[in-house]
């Protein structure tokens, strides 16, 4: 059964889902949602995702939203296919869960705010709040310092293998490095840099980059 992914292939949250599906070799079809036209706020879309956000996924009669819930599902459903993105034991899974939550709470909002101010608003012809962007950058420096310390002791966030915890960071870091001119946050940190080089060179991620046609 082909998984229907409703969203935009260049948006961060759908990319989180698509990266996971590609890692697990799950067939999918993208149904583009035109954010500029406000498609995500229309009644038909709100039936799929009542908060008017992308992505929303349809897999037979299973309908899901919230990208991190979706990737947890596919990582569990196809645990025996491709790389194990969840860890091999309950204890390992607990660490994966922990760093997935770290990404959601300590990392994602800072990147989202910063990118909105210095990339998205200017694209819309408006002025971003540079002071706010700078504040986010400073806070991200501290977060990346913690990641640097952590990755000096383990190759990936949850241990010795690539898991959902690492995957979840891919779209946001791409925005930072490629669109927001914030590559220094990564390149100035030896272990973060090595980790980013590794995870962004995975074939699933490279396939997604091709699909996104940047």
């Amino acid at each position, binding site marked *: 059964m082909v998984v229907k992914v409703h969203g935009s292939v260049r948006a961060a949250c759908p990319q989180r889902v698509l990266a996971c599906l590609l890692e697990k070799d799950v067939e999918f079809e993208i149904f583009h949602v035109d954010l500029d036209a406000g498609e995500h706020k229309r009644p038909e879309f709100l039936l799929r995702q009542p908060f008017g956000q992308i992505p929303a996924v349809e897999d037979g009669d299973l309908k899901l939203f919230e990208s991190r819930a979706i990737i*947890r599902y596919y990582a*569990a*459903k196809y645990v025996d296919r491709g790389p194990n993105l969840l860890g091999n034991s309950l204890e390992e899974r607990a660490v994966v869960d922990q760093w997935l939550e770290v990404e959601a709470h300590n990392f994602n909002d800072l990147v989202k705010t910063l990118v909105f101010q210095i990339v998205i608003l200017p694209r819309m012809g408006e002025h971003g709040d540079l002071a706010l962007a700078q504040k986010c950058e400073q806070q991200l420096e501290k977060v990346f310092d913690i990641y640097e310390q952590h990755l000096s002791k383990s190759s990936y966030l949850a241990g010795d293998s690539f898991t959902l915890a690492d995957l979840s960071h891919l779209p946001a870091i791409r925005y930072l490095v490629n669109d927001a001119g914030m590559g220094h946050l990564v390149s100035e940190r030896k272990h973060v840099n090595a980790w980013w080089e590794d995870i962004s060179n995975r074939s699933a991620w490279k396939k997604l980059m091709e699909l996104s046609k940047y």
Partner: protein
Amino acid sequence: MKNKKVYGSLNSAATLKVLACLFEHDLDFDFVPIDLEAGEHKKKPFLSMNPFGQVPVFEDGDVKQFESRAIIRSMGHQYGKKGEELIYWDSREQAVVANWIDVEDHHFEPPALKLISELVIKPKKGLTPDEETVAEAEAKLAKVLDVYEARLSKFKYLASDKYTIADMLHLPNIQALIGTQAKKLFDSRPRLSEWCTAILARPAWIKVVEMQQKAQA
């Protein structure tokens, strides 16, 4: 066998969620209070347990875990009582629970915490709530609660017809909000109101409330 430990604060919603989960699973534990006012969570030795300087931290044997929703997910899978699990073993059904856990995280909690900050925390410090901030947060929360009302018209609980982690995560913030003017947002939505009454009546949650009351006594 070392006792399980929770390092946290009874003023922290995240800590209270973990405590509720421990009581739901009938697990014995020691509670180690961390003084947030004194900034204990931003200093060593706490930082060596959670480098992000946030409560709670859960210690189970040799393992220390932070991030309340990660702790709670793990607890659900590790200690789920057969027939009374707060999770599902089937990945499809668990996916829906995970979906609504993230709804609580991304949609419910932010405006809820904003309101609690204005309507509960500020008054305790002798400060006046900012009317504009309150109105904005109430409007945001109202939209979320409309989604909840529609969802709960189809299911007894948020994820399905049984109580799961997705419901439990709402407890501390709902408990705080119904003691404020924001109570009207819940009272005016009948299914939501029924659901709140049901989850606040869980014996495990009542034990958490008793812990808080004892500490304030």
